């Protein structure tokens, strides 16, 4: 039994029906009530959307979504059928993967290098350079489109020749400030003793980075991957600018946005589309969630 487990036993076990025991029980119950209550409240808008996605257009327009939860249950899968049958969906999901995966991998890798340097290497102007990088988070992307696209056009980096490369690089550039900021913050929190110990043990910069920093930063990298993937996956504008909206390259956001027409007709299909487009990011989130484990640093240092 570990020291932790021992401590936990001591805390939890108060004699049955003692005041401490009762108050602990009450706290537990209260905790569950609060957790479930908050989550339920949070879910209301999503439940509204989910319910509506199974309703007829006319019903959505004329009665509140909650009325569908009482008899007569007039549910329909028409919205889903319409969305799924829009011919380009499968292809555009694939396009979204083609865009999102490299656009996540590239900035995450580059950010990890930079964050390590910012967190653990000393060089002149380090703090100011880092802050400048953070400040770039505030640059409105719309203002970068013209100069960047101009450069792309002048070097021929257009979709006709280079496919998705332009949008990968752009997403990498746009995602880097946050990525470096998040990772550097996490790297900085690693105990310095580990680095010094490794240095004395004879580990070079590379060994420290690959064998100590990266394995210990898995939760931070996992959250970064989730967010970068999500942002790219949900992005509409950057994709439209750098790859365009033609069917063969359109990501799923473009295809779904086109479900409703220019005058706004067909918006009810977005209810179903929203749930379908949510699936992939949620799968990514859930599958990476197991890396958010307690105490990845436990046992390394004390105090």
């Amino acid at each position, binding site marked *: 039994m570990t020291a932790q487990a021992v401590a936990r036993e*001591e805390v939890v076990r108060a004699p049955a029906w003692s005041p401490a025991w009762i108050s602990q029980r009450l706290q537990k119950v209260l905790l*569950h009530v609060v*957790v479930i209550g908050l989550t339920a409240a*949070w*879910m*209301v*808008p999503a439940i509204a*959307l989910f319910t*509506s996605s199974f309703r007829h257009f006319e019903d959505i327009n*004329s*009665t*509140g979504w909650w009325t569908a939860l009482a008899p007569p249950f007039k549910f329909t899968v028409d919205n889903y059928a319409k969305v799924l049958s829009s011919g380009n969906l499968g292809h555009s999901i694939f396009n979204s993967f083609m865009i999102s995966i490299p656009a996540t*991998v590239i*900035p995450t*890798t*580059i950010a990890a*290098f*930079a964050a390590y*340097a910012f967190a653990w*290497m000393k*060089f002149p102007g380090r703090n100011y*350079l880092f*802050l400048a*990088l953070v*400040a*770039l988070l*505030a*640059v*409105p992307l719309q*203002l*970068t489109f013209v*100069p960047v696209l101009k*450069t792309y056009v002048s070097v021929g980096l257009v979709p006709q020749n280079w496919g998705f490369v332009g949008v990968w*690089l752009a997403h*990498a*550039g*746009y995602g*880097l400030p946050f990525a470096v*900021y*998040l990772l550097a*913050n*996490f790297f900085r929190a690693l105990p310095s003793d580990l680095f010094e110990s490794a240095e004395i043990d004879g580990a*070079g*910069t*590379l060994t420290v980075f690959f064998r100590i920093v990266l394995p210990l930063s898995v939760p931070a990298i*996992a959250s970064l991957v989730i*967010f970068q993937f999500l942002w790219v996956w*949900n992005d*509409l504008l950057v994709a439209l600018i750098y790859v365009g909206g033609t069917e063969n390259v359109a990501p799923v956001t473009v295809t*779904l946005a086109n479900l409703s027409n220019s005058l706004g007709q067909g918006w009810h299909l*977005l*209810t179903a589309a*929203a749930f379908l487009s949510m699936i992939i990011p949620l799968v990514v989130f*859930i599958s990476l*969630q*197991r890396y*958010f*484990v*307690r105490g990845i640093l*436990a046992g390394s240092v004390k105090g």
Partner: protein
Amino acid sequence: MDLLIQDVPTLVFVVVAVPAVLAIYIVGTEYLVRLLPDKQRPRVRPWFWVGPALLFVTAFLVLPALGTVVTSLQDHDGNFIGLVNYQRQLGDFPTGGAWIAIRNNVYWLILYTLFVLFFGLILAVLFDRVRYESIVKSFIFLPMAISSVALAVIWGFMYSYQPADAPQTGTLNFIVVNVFHQAPKTWLSDPTVNNFALIAAAIWGITGFAMVILSAALKGIPGELLEAARVDGAGELTIFRRVIFPLMMPTVVVVGTTLVIFALKAFDVVYVMTAGNFQTDVLANRMYKLLYQSDNPGGASAVAIILLIAVVPVLIFNLRQFRAVEARR
């Protein structure tokens, strides 16, 4: 379908090759660094590590930002006109120029940042104590996965308005009418509530972000520390205040800073729900309109620069924060 299958090797290639290339880069440069005399190495090495990141942000953000500074000082035909664009945006206080947008950004800055941090922390800490953590976390995270267009549809269901004599189709107005017996409210067009309605929708959308990062930081706090505090007889609130919060402070600063910047850049929710009408304009939306509708790049650039300048106090706070962290180690 065969088209998809044929492209899979491309994808796999990219996923494997890109990190491989970057790994080769970093190993290769380290090899180069080792050719240098001992003393030079720590001076040269960091630049190889930050190099690719600097290259990317320079090309995609720094140069365009510098161009924006230049554009903000020019008129439509590219003539230098000094600060006229800024004067136009900052003239006619308090309702002219960009002032309504600035006022609303202040609302966003305060309410959005504080509430998201608050909810993010509360949820991270509470969820940490239940066994079904991963499920409830997924639920809170879910809005993150919704695109802004769908967000408008979702919150349309919440805020929709019907005349008092018609059945309400909006969740909030249903409650207002049937529980509080009040006249239905026009959540999105009434200037006394609409900014808060938009901010609420945005808070709902982004809290998952704060929760995930704060939760990761929370998991980084060694369990022994919490157990020790509990054995010492500290109450849960005390533990949160005295142990958890101070240890999470650097991460709170990171999330807080990011949220402040998100608040300053608030755009999607406003754009899709009110488009800045009914006094809900924000700087980013104003910039968008100036840029794409009014054909006024100078004005748009001035707004963008105002936005960038607004970030400076946050950066100074950050600088002090990580100087404090460095002093501690």
